[in-house]
């Protein structure tokens, strides 16, 4: 009763001198940050905030598990470029979002995560639903804050949004004790930011850009590697302009897909472990490698001492710590990818003479494209992805989990535009694809959003079908069902003498019935002949659908660079 009076006082006072409770401050601040949707799940310690959500009517999407909420926030952030906001309670609510926070950290997605916390007076006493979420998330957030005084809250929220979205984006966590969210304080959101230790470099050094322009002029075998940094910076046009002017071939990382048009003739496809022959050979043979906003992840580089052995390495990255971390860099450029490419377009006047190189690459592309054996009896997963590409005209937003279906999607869906590709790259999170599609659909309500998921990964977060049911959200779920943990099975086949330890899932739920239980329209497809028609119908259907596609069970992802091998040692290229 006492609390209520206080809150009401807070509300009355808020009009005159901006006195209000911590939870009202939070909602006010979210409005100031133009947050139009939050994903979350209520609980004890976050009750005051949920009361404020109830009263203000801010759009809140109720997940059925906190992991679903945070992956949805990630999908929203990846597609919209705006920070995803996730609100959960203390203890188990907070620990349930850890996978998503780690995922966002390694894939540089801007998130603001608000966790409830027990009252400050009992912090450290192992109180009910208490977890040291600050300690736990310190290594997997860009920064985190615990609010000790309600008057600090406006600044903390403002700083959180700034840190999450600027420089190299990442997740920021605010731990909000229950008493702080009830306490009354002054709401002042107009104070300037005071972050002397956080000054990301946006504008690169022009001398370094000139050095790169000179290297381009001298290069005989240049190649561009596009990373997700281009997507975060919104620099696709600048990259396209540069690549076309200089006639340099472009390879992409997994997360960079869409930064350069996937259907462009200069595009080689994805490089790395399951990359194309032409992309990997170009990286291997290049004499100049221009990395734009990629972090030389081990899935891309393969064996480090065999990576790009003849190349001068130029690396453009907004995070200076990425430069030289894995690969020794000769031309480091710290700055925003868009700015850097704009300057490079000004500086790079002479075109590189690389006619022979272009011919070689053309041959590689023609000789060794991505391939699979076609079959009339069996539904080939690669063909399935091709069909999705055809039927959506390459215009859909595709989300995935991790594993075989992810690699096939990366290989066979030729993303023509930025921000249509949502996948868990660095962390490789199963159960990411479906909830992130929900977030993506909120970011782009009018676009077709297809969640391409494995049968195993889908079962990790399938409970979010409730959101589709509740909101009639038209997400299209396509289960690439090989009744196994495909990539694990592939590795066991190749490297563990076919000992399929716990990777085969012969017992499965009836996914169509499961969909039906949530009032989601479902189809099961076994015959490849009927695939296209059902896909057409499903995509045209106004509402959520689930397709259980029974694909060839023992299909493997090729080509492949085995662990510990270099780019020139690919296996499974087209014979």
């Amino acid at each position, binding site marked *: 009763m006492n609390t209520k009076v206080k809150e009401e006082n807070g509300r009355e006072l808020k009009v005159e001198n901006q006195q209000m409770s911590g939870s009202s401050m939070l909602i006010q601040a979210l409005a100031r940050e133009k947050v139009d949707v939050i994903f979350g799940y209520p609980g004890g310690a976050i009750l005051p905030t949920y009361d404020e959500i109830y009263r203000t009517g801010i759009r809140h999407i109720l997940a059925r598990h906190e992991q679903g909420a945070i992956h949805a926030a990630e999908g929203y952030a990846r597609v919209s470029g705006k920070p995803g906001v996730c609100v959960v309670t203390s203890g188990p609510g907070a620990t349930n979002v850890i996978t998503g926070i780690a995922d966002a950290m390694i894939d540089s997605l801007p998130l603001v995560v608000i966790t409830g916390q027990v009252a400050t007076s009992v912090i450290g006493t192992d109180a009910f639903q208490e977890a040291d979420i*600050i*300690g736990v998330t*310190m*290594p997997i957030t*860009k*920064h985190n804050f615990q609010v000790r005084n309600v008057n600090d809250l406006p600044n903390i929220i403002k700083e959180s949004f700034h*840190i999450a979205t600027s420089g190299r984006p990442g997740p920021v966590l605010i731990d909000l004790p229950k008493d702080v969210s009830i306490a009354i304080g002054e709401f002042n959101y107009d104070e300037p930011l005071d*972050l*002397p*230790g*956080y000054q990301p470099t946006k504008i690169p050094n022009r001398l370094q850009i000139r050095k790169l322009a000179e290297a381009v002029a001298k290069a005989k075998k240049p190649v561009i590697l596009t990373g997700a940094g281009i997507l975060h910076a919104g620099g696709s046009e600048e990259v396209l302009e540069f690549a076309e002017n200089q006639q340099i071939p472009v390879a992409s990382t997994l997360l960079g897909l869409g930064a350069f048009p996937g259907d462009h003739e200069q595009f080689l496809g994805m490089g790395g472990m399951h990359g194309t022959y032409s992309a990997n050979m170009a990286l291997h043979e290049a004499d100049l490698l221009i990395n734009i906003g990629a972090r030389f992840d081990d899935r891309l580089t393969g064996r480090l001492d065999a990576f790009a052995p003849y190349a001068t390495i130029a690396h453009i990255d907004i*995070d*200076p*710590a990425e430069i*030289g*971390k894995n690969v*020794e860099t000769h031309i480091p450029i710290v700055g925003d990818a868009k700015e850097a490419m704009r300057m490079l377009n000004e500086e790079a006047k002479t075109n590189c003479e690389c006619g022979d190189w272009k011919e070689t690459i053309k041959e590689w592309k023609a000789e060794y494209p991505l391939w699979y054996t076609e079959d009339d009896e069996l539904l080939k997963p690669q063909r399935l992805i091709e069909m999705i590409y055809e039927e959506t005209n390459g215009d859909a937003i595709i989300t995935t989990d991790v594993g075989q279906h992810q690699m096939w999607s990366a290989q066979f869906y030729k993303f023509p535009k930025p921000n249509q590709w949502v996948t868990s790259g660095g962390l490789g999170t199963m159960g990411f694809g479906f909830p992130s599609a929900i977030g993506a659909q909120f970011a782009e309500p009018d676009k077709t959003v297809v969640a391409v998921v494995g049968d195993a990964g889908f079962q990790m977060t399938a409970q979010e079908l409730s959101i589709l049911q509740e909101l009639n959200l038209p997400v299209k779920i396509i289960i690439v069902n090989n009744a196994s943990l495909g990539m694990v099975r592939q590795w066991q086949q190749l490297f563990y003498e076919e000992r399929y330890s716990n990777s085969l899932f012969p017992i499965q739920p009836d996914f169509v019935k499961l969909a039906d239980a949530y009032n989601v329209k479902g189809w099961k497809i076994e015959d490849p002949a009927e695939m296209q028609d059902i896909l057409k119908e499903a995509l045209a259907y106004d509402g959520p659908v689930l397709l259980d596609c029974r694909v060839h069970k023992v299909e493997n992802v090729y080509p492949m660079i085995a662990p510990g091998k270099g780019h020139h040692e690919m296996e499974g290229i087209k014979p």
Partner: protein
Amino acid sequence: MRKTIVATVNNTSGVMNRITGLFARRNFNIESITVGMTENPRVSRMTFVMNVDDQRGLDQVIKQLNKQVDVLKVRDLTDEAIVARELALIKVLSPPQQRGELTDLIQPFRASIIDVSRESITIQVTGDNDKVEALIDLVKPYGIKELARTGITAFKRDTKKGVIDSPKYSVIN
């Protein structure tokens, strides 16, 4: 390579945890770490002595530290003119007949005896790493019962080291 790195950081709760956690998860090898408030109560100063394999390893340490929102400034002071000091407390076995000998021994180090008991004395010494090591080596044969060291804390010198090491004399003196 042994490196002395100094960082100024926001004096907020948990900042020490952020830094040591960073070192642990990035596999950086620290020899010593000291921390304390500066002339500005909102800012703390940390001094790390660490072992790195090469220049790239050192660059990573400095860059990763700089990435922390609470880290204000990082400097590698290894090759700079610096004042670097640590303090060591050494409890040495000293029967009464050896006490005089020990007192004489530590005198050139400008160390002092801060506690005396029947069997032992506690020596306090302040200086750079080499000096402290030298004194420890010297008293080792007497039997060290306990040893505590603070680790190096360091400053950049205002005047260049060279000037202090070889003072120039004028013709007059």
